[in-house]
């Protein structure tokens, strides 16, 4: 075979340069690398077993990739088409996915359950009409929270939560804090360490702490957000009658496991002097009376979660946040002006899941961390006043501390 290969010198140089460029491109330096682990909220906790990793991945797929359609049970009235729609990158939600709940104006229960309560399904399949809030019904808007570290918060013992509560402000610091006591829904079993009172159990998840655990939260979300029934909650949100499960129990358990084993956010710049000062000021002005830095988990069959200290900056209790944040709607035993202390970990990464902006507080009304701080009232009013009395440099240090959480 004649292997003549007569490419002009200049041309061969061009080709060689191009191939070299392609080869360079093929190396790790050019292929997009993973972001710093501390800069993202998704990913599993360390030290899961292979079987646990497999379940985590199944849950990850179900949570982030499974999109429901009319053929697979979506709606017919709904808020979102998938779990991941509301929690991009497992972070906080956006006003687009903010949901509305209505019908309960006091601790005595929801008076609008027969008229679509407690959640407004504001979207509908073609040919169907979305729900409307009945005239006169109290309501509130709730921005989806971040999922990160939920498994750790689920494992805080009732005893620890009760120890942080101070219903009558016995210590005189102006901060009380109470759990949301509710009866268990039928499909839930009480945790081993539960401390019930009059058959009421401490609930801890959600803006009003109305969900007992992550199974409760997940089943509710499938049903009320996506319109998907399960063996746990067979009632169709549109017809109000029980129908066949549209998601299997095993998928729900996988999603729950996924949520339980999502990693915790880590502080990204804790040794910075301004951050250290900001943390000191945060404690000094009393923010940590509610935003407790450190909690610990109790027993878990998952070794990676068992008996761990973690730093969520929450006490999982309800607090009076004042008239400014009182929407007139509530859940469980919470008052309309009470909100569960949100965890602050991951706060600085909120913009990465909220489209580049901040939408903070329960309904996303605060467009900055500063704005969220000054909107605090009620039990937090004193801390807010102290914050506003700080110098601009001190305020900046507090913000630097919060932004690196």
């Amino acid at each position: 075979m004649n292997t003549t290969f007569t490419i002009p010198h200049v041309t061969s140089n061009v080709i060689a340069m191009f191939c070299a460029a392609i080869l360079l491109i093929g190396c790790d330096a050019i292929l997009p690398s993973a972001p710093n682990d501390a800069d993202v909220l998704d990913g599993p906790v360390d030290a899961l077993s292979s079987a646990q990793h497999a379940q985590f991945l199944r849950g990850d797929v179900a949570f982030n990739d499974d999109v429901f359609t009319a053929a697979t049970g979506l709606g017919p009235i709904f808020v979102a088409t998938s779990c991941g729609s509301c929690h991009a990158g497992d972070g906080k939600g956006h006003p687009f996915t903010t949901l509305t709940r209505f019908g309960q104006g006091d601790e005595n229960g929801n008076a609008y359950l027969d008229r679509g309560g407690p959640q407004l399904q504001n979207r509908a399949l073609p040919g169907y009409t979305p729900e409307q809030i009945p005239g006169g019904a109290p309501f509130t808007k709730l921005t989806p929270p971040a999922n990160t570290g939920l498994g750790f918060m689920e494992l805080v013992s009732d005893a620890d939560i009760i120890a942080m509560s101070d219903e009558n402000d016995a210590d005189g610091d102006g901060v009380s804090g109470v759990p949301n006591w509710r009866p268990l829904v039928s499909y839930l079993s009480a945790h081993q360490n539960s401390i019930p009172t009059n058959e009421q159990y401490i609930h801890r998840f959600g803006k009003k702490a109305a969900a007992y655990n992550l199974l409760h939260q997940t089943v509710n979300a499938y049903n009320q957000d996506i319109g998907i029934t399960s063996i746990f909650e067979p009632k169709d949100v549109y017809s109000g009658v029980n129908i066949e499960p549209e998601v299997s129990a095993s998928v729900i358990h996988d999603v729950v496991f996924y949520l339980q084993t999502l990693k915790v956010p880590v502080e990204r710049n804790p040794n910075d002097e301004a951050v250290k000062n900001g943390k000191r000021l945060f404690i000094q002005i009393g923010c940590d009376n509610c935003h407790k830095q450190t909690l610990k988990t109790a027993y878990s069959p998952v070794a990676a979660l068992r008996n761990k200290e973690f730093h969520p900056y929450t006490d999982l209790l309800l607090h009076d946040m004042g008239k400014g944040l009182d929407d007139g709607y509530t859940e469980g035993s919470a008052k309309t002006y009470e909100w569960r202390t949100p965890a602050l970990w991951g706060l600085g990464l909120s913009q990465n899941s909220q489209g580049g902006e901040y939408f903070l507080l329960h309904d996303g009304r605060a467009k900055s961390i500063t704005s969220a701080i000054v909107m605090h009232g009620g039990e937090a009013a004193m801390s807010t006043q102290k914050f506003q009395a700080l110098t601009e440099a001190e305020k900046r240090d507090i913000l630097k501390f919060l932004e690196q959480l």
Partner: protein
Amino acid sequence: MSKCKILTIVCLCNAIVFMQWPNATAAGAADFTQANSTRSDSTRSDSTQANSMQTDSAQIFKRIPVDTAPDKLNMDAVYNRPFLTAGVLPVAIGGYVEANTNYRQTNGISEGTSFQARRFTLFVSSTIASRIKLLTELEFEDGTREINLEFAAVDFEFHPLLNLRGGILMNPIGAFNQNHDGPKWDFIDRPLSATTLLPATLSNVGFGLHGKHYQHNWVLGYEAYLTNGFDDKIISNTLNRTSLPEGKMNPARFEENASGLPMYTAKFAVRHRQIGELGLSVMSGVYNKWKSDGIVLDKKRSVTALALDFNTTMLSGDLYITGEVAKIFIDVPDTYSQTFGSEQLGGFVDIIGTVFKGSIFDWENARLNLGVRLEYVDYNQGTFNETNGNIADDLWSIMPTFAFRPTATTVLRLNYRYQHQRDLLGNPPAKTGAIQFGISTYF
């Protein structure tokens, strides 16, 4: 194994292929160049050479080369392919195959290297009688995961300006849908705007007219068809976005029109022999099941796609530019989720330059091409009702290519893709890099 090592192995394999390629296999070369062979008349000699180098099996078949006259339009692509015919039989066969390696990494995560058998396609054409002809295109994608009859239509020529086409035909929306054969392109991946926005390859059952008119240096062409259309999956799918490709997944569309109303597709194209081709096309129809058993279930909801395509050749055929842009309008219920957008926009431009043409390993008319593809797709144009902020769900991509064409109908391609894709909310993009090496050839 590091990605550099993998790539080195791929390149070594590539080199071995170059060294061991049997001379006789070059016989497969019929004259052909990208996008309707309008690049250069100089490649016409390929077919002559190829025909003089037939293998034993080729003694049975006669190769029918592609017509490279610079008056072909994209609409001619379906018939303007290399075929093999035996004796005086009025039937010709052809086809192409393509395969590639695929390494893809998004934000540092990769599923590793895969080898992909993208397509094996068979053409059969037949001259039934004078001015009555038939062509079929049967495609096997990803092995046998998808088997599609992409074209099976009969053409009746009453006059060059008046041809009747009926059967399974490719809707003439944009240029790529009708001109999609792998060996024509110097890129392994098909354009995103042509496959994830416009749903190439889109075939439907229907009837219509087409024709061409020649005037000095100008060629004018038109196509107008009525076909079955899409279905509700356009806005009810697991992609969680408006998707015409999802709306064509219903295999029953070849026997029942989901909406019961014909979809129309029309295209007008003009080519100047020295300048290039410009095409303007529209496709519109009702996509939803608005009535069943005589009961009206919903209003009629339409989907309309507009596309502009162009291609031109410069520097005596050594520089080729082609592209298309598409805009899609979909009637999405106001009460449905804004996840499913009512407007989409996207397009691509390919720029291919020949840096060497001549003899390489005895392939007398080989070419080495360098090129780049620029792509942009916005799957959801609009603003959120809640914030009036922009809905993102978009991507852009840049893809350089190095292609070796031992003959005009065969190509070895080395591609790299760099892509940014944002979610609905416009959060930090998923960054993807992909490296591919592949082959594609007519036979």
